[in-house]
């Protein structure tokens, strides 16, 4: 029996050992996947999230510019319409369930989701330096602001999500745009304090001035004229960093360099692995869109001597229609592949300041406009024109200078409340006032019962 007992012990012992080391045995070692703790352990790794954040945002690249070009008065469908979605944009045939516009909602909120996680990751970090924390936090806040700016401009009131606590955030009502703007302004002010005032390598990450540049634009929307004026002035004052780029000259001695990577006019560009050129994208599908050339169209808006007409648009002979020519490298032989998509640039700061100063009653508000007109080979506008005309001049200048860039025209029309007036003239047959807002994606409404659809759309 004693012998038997020994056997029993021998049999059971391994089982007993097994149970004591259970938790060890259930540990797994993930590879190619890292925990929050690992990532925010040092500045360099935490900074890599900034790059991923920009990478995610950059997926929108030209698409948003093109789409809103169609919904505003910049583009019309071309003869070969490869992308049906653009026709829907152009004709305002948007539907919320398989909508062409749903991807903007998704991308913007994905970027915001990463930014929220960064804010929380930095807060937990024990290994990062203060400088490293400032940079990561500043970038997160900047990107969150930029994406909320797009969201409210495309969709109207949207849920304001600032944490990654999905249990709290998943069912949330839409917030008034004014509340969202308050958050944007706050984020940008924080970012301008946190971010560096220099570029590290290229102009592809926001710095202090990028945050201020965006702030000056946002303040036009919130009518905080002084803040808009001051922010723009601060950016313009950085002359060692920022100077206006040049346009083509008639004799061909100079070539437009505004959109060339890291040009002095650029405040923020999107990095591009130069293997695939930005121009190539827009030009590759040139037959699917054309610059509007009718009487209300963009082409007619250029003054006859405006050099920008030939710098920013080009006649494509095979289709007899005009295309976007701001980005020129198309991957073809002999074309330099040296452009980055511009997000913020100095020209806009002059326009922002001009408008803010005009609203503040500044006597020489229009001077800033004349700086751009001069570069375009146009005559200066007198300081003495009435405010209403001056505003018109600024908006005109904005239209031709910032055409095809990040929905600027579309946002400006809505900001000034002139979308109905302008668009019903430009597209009398198809314009619908409710089209100022894109539909909220159906799946979002399904997953967040406090969301409701924008007027004019049925789920």
């Amino acid at each position: 029996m004693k012998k038997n007992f020994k056997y029993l012990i021998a049999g059971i012992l391994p089982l007993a050992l097994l149970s004591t080391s259970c938790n060890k045995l259930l540990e797994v070692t993930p590879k190619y996947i890292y925990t929050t703790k690992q990532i925010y352990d040092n500045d360099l790794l935490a900074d890599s999230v900034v790059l991923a954040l920009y990478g995610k945002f950059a997926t929108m690249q030209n698409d948003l510019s093109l789409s809103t070009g169609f919904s505003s008065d910049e583009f019309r469908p071309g003869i070969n319409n490869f992308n049906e979605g653009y026709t829907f944009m152009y004709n305002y045939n948007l539907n919320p369930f398989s909508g062409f516009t749903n991807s903007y909602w998704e991308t913007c909120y994905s970027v915001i989701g990463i930014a929220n996680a960064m804010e929380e990751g930095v807060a937990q970090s024990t290994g990062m330096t203060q400088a490293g924390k400032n940079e990561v936090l500043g970038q997160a806040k900047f990107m969150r602001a930029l994406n909320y700016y797009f969201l409210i401009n495309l969709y109207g009131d949207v849920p304001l999500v600032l944490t990654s606590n999905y249990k709290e955030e998943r069912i949330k009502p839409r917030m008034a745009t004014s509340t969202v703007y308050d958050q944007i302004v706050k984020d940008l002010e924080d970012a301008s304090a946190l971010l560096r005032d220099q570029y590290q390598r290229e102009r592809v990450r926001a710095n202090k001035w990028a945050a201020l540049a965006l702030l000056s634009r946002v303040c036009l929307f919130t009518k905080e004229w002084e803040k808009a004026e001051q922010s723009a002035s601060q950016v313009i004052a950085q002359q060692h960093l920022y100077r206006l780029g040049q346009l083509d000259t008639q004799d061909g001695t100079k070539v437009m360099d505004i959109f060339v990577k890291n040009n002095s006019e650029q405040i923020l560009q999107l990095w591009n692995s130069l293997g695939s050129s930005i121009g190539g994208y827009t030009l590759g599908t040139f037959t699917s869109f054309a610059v509007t050339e009718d009487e209300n169209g963009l082409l007619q808006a250029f003054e006859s001597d405006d050099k920008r007409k030939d710098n920013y648009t080009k006649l494509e002979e095979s289709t007899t229609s005009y295309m976007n020519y701001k980005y020129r490298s198309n991957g073809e032989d002999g074309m330099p592949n040296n452009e980055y998509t511009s997000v913020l640039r100095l020209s806009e700061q002059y326009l922002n300041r001009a408008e803010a100063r005009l609203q503040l009653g500044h006597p020489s508000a229009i001077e800033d406009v004349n700086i751009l007109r001069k570069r375009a080979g146009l005559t200066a506008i007198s300081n003495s024109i009435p405010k209403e005309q001056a505003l018109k001049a600024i908006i005109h200048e904005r239209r031709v200078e910032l055409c095809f860039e990040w929905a600027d025209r579309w946002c400006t029309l809505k900001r000034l409340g002139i979308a109905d007036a302008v668009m019903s003239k430009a597209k009398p047959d198809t314009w619908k006032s409710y089209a100022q807002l894109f539909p909220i994606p159906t799946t979002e409404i399904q997953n967040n019962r406090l969301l409701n659809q924008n007027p004019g759309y049925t789920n």
Partner: protein
Amino acid sequence: MNRLKNLLLVTSVLASTTLSAQQLNYQGKPSLKELFTIIRQQTGYNIIASSNQVDLNAIVTVKAKDKMLREVLEEAFQNLPLSFKIVGKEITILHDDRTKENKTKKQKTVQQLFINGIVRDKLGPIELVTIYNKNNDKVTFTDSKGMFTIERTDNTDTLIFSSLGYKEREIYIPINQQKVDLQLLQVQTVLDEVSVLSYGQQVSKRLNTGSTSGVTAAIIEKTPTADPLIALQNRVPGLLINTLSGLPGIQTQVQIRGINTVNQDGQARQPLFIVDGIPFNNNSLSHIGANNLTKSILGESPLKSIDPSTIASIEVLKDADATAIYGARGANGVILITTKRGKVGRATLSADYYHSFASIGRHMKMLNTAQYLEMRREAAKNDGIELTPEAYPDLFSWSQAEDHNWQKEYFSNIAHTYNAELSLSGGSSRFNYMLGGGFRRENTVYDKKNGLSIGNFRSNLDYNTADGKFTASLSASYATDKNDIIPLSFNNFLTLPPNYSLYTANGELNWGLENPIAQLEQTIENKTKNMVSNLSLSYRLLPNLVTKINTGYTRMHMDQMALHPRRSFNPAYSTPGSNSFTDATTATFNFEPQLDYDLVLGRNAFHALLGGTYNNSENESINKSGADYLDDSMIEDINAAGRIDILQDQRQYRFLSGFARIGWTFDQKYVLNGTIRRDGSSRFGPGNKYGNFWSLGAAWIVSEEKWLKENNIGISFAKLRGSYGLTGNDNIGDYSYFVNYARSLENYLDQGFLPTNLFNANYQWEVNKKLDLAAEMGFLKDRIVLEVNYYRNRSGNQLVGYGLPTQVGYNSVNQNLDAIVQNSGWEFSLQTTPINNLVFTWKTNFTMSINRNKLLSFPDLSGSPYSLTYQLGKPLSLTWGYKYLGINPTDGQPQFEDISGDGQISFPDDYTVLAPNIPTFFGGIGNSFNYKNFDLDIFFSFKKNKNAYFFPFSGAGSTMNAPVTVLDRWQQAGQDAKFPAYTTNSMVMSNYSSSNANYVDASYLRLNNMTLSYRVPHKFIEKIKMKNLRAYATGANLFTLTKFKGTDPETGIDMPMLRTFTLGIRSSF
């Protein structure tokens, strides 16, 4: 004859040496029946006793303390007219009344003569048949060749031949007859089949408390496919196998008793596969790390690396009692595959070969050129659209005379399969072996060059020490296959207009439409290597206590290459060439210690199993893809790519559990089994890793009750059984309880890392509560065996990737959902043997399964992301869409139900549940006939599914052909046609496509398999030392009765299952 005698002597010596070491410990006065149970449990010896010769209730006295088995038996039989014989691991008990009488007479031996002969069944010689000479009480056994020699008297002798599973035979041998050639009749029924249970336990069906069913090698052999699961289709009650395509080696969808989870990931719905005791990963590796291009291909079935001819049985474990021992992972049922092992006996060399010829059995009738062009013209006319050469190239620039039947032109070849197997098996009482290998090659009906080739090797070795205390079993198999079949889209050929030309006048691919044969310019090559190995060691610590360690290691590796040269794309889009290379490995290590204890107390028999499982599996893959190639000639060179993307992926999964199972059998009448286990999974966060599961099973063998036994009303067997228990599910993917930062795919300056998920640290085991009730009955000496099974499984605490609004940054988060899915149903199986004699045997087999799947509860379903996927009280597989109300006879427009009543048909207001897309019932009817040396098996399968997706008729607005059924369309006012007026209006047709107009009845009755085989009589092959020679012809998928107008009601519009004819031979030496 001398040789034979020696041989017999050797076997009996061997037997007695083994026996001498078998010791027994028992004291008491058991009945014989109890004694035999004790012996079996303590020594592992099987006892064969014919109940009409031996009184099992006789009480004997046993005083055994470490006593030899032989001694114990001799003592026990002292006062009984019984004797025994031990051969191998079997003890045969013989009725011996004359022995005693004769003893007094002394052996007045006259002339010593012998009778010799051979005993066979239909398949060949039978080993270990007991031959008893009534006249002189001599007993002997047949050897491995079925031969025997027995002493005779000087008069007519009466020999009794008996063996387990055979009908006893008594024959008279006249004085002048010396040789006997005798055939015994098999009477074994399903009830005598042994069920393989979890962790290598075996139990006869008669005492099983759980719900298991399966198929044996005999059936698997008749299905000449690479994937052994196909053999189970419609044969096993409760097991639904959906074949998705007729291409070789494609994964099937397997469901045991319905879908248990709202999680739509196919992986979460799969049962657990166990091969020789080791969990087998049946998730196609081609999904791991594969890029979008290769993902479109249906997954390859990993099971194809298990050679069907080496499989001894496949068991399907269904209820809580049977699956509880796999606890955590048994929620969706368990499929146990057991491979063949060597048997005691002389070496047998088997060589098998077959060749299959396969073709598409049914084509779908499409419009011919005249009808197609008429459709296009009529649609334009109906819509008042002007025909222009630009919009209607098919009416202007294309040939108006050519009339292609694309299915016939591209899919009418004969696909060939060559399959060869060679194996060697045999063994002694100490050592058994089975070594085998095979090769298989299969191509497709559209491509002779490319195909699926599989080579495999297997060795199964078993060893035990002379004292029988220590045993070791090793199984190792290795399979390698290469599949370079290009999965052409069958559907694209159906819709291709009949007057189109795939080539231009100068022989180049015509790109007027997307060219479906351009895919043949691409290369796809999957190479898989699969190793499965298992070592099992056991040691008998005490006569009734065995410790066992089971270890296994499996490793599957896939090397996948896809080349997409520029020439395979429409030049209009100037798509540059691209490629993708995937290298994926999954390896699993499994370790299972066990303690096994038996105790017999009077009429009570206890069995206890205590064990643990540790499982570690790791997937690792790397995918390299190159894009933007300058020229097709460089397409295999990853360095020549304009852009290279590399994706690495790894998943580690660990599983740990401890379990105990206790079984109690009383008087062979009442059986009670209980299992408890605690499982840990690495897929859950800290504090949530463990779950507790249990089950209880009981059986009452009613036919063992005296009152039923004595009333001879033809019931030979009756059992009621039931089980209830909890099993779990952890199929939610790895690592999701913490935020995963991973390399961003969107490059920006340098390496970026981004959070890829939201984390929820609190999700837990999904729990499936299973209830199972069954009655098993045998009538007329088990010539009719009926099993009726009812089950009800409720799966709750569902693990899902719960949909989130993207405002939180992500689409979903893993969490438990408080929804309950119920599967309930009935399973029937009826096996009969209407005729069974030596000349002719007829057996039938009928199975049917009815499963009702229902979503019982789902909190806030309408406010959840599943609001348009599921509906309370309805099955999970729902079809949603507009309800088609037929056409309006006045204008020929399709009509749909306007549920919202707003006067227009719109999504999602008017979307509704149309019908569940699952079979109402399915099953099979098998008949097998045997006449002399001929066998004929006929197997029909049937399935009722009223709601299968049929060819989508997209109108006539684009250059797409339609099935001939659309000829019944509306043409004039008042006409009541089946199809709406031809139209080019895509909005109208889009509603039509999203309605139930395209769902049809796909119920069918199919002659699945018909096999005729002929065994060459032994007298012809004995001379060439052959043991067995069989030639057979099989027809698979011969005809289908169905209303479904497509090619195959199973695969819908995908490549149909092929009609296959196979010729083969099986031989053994």
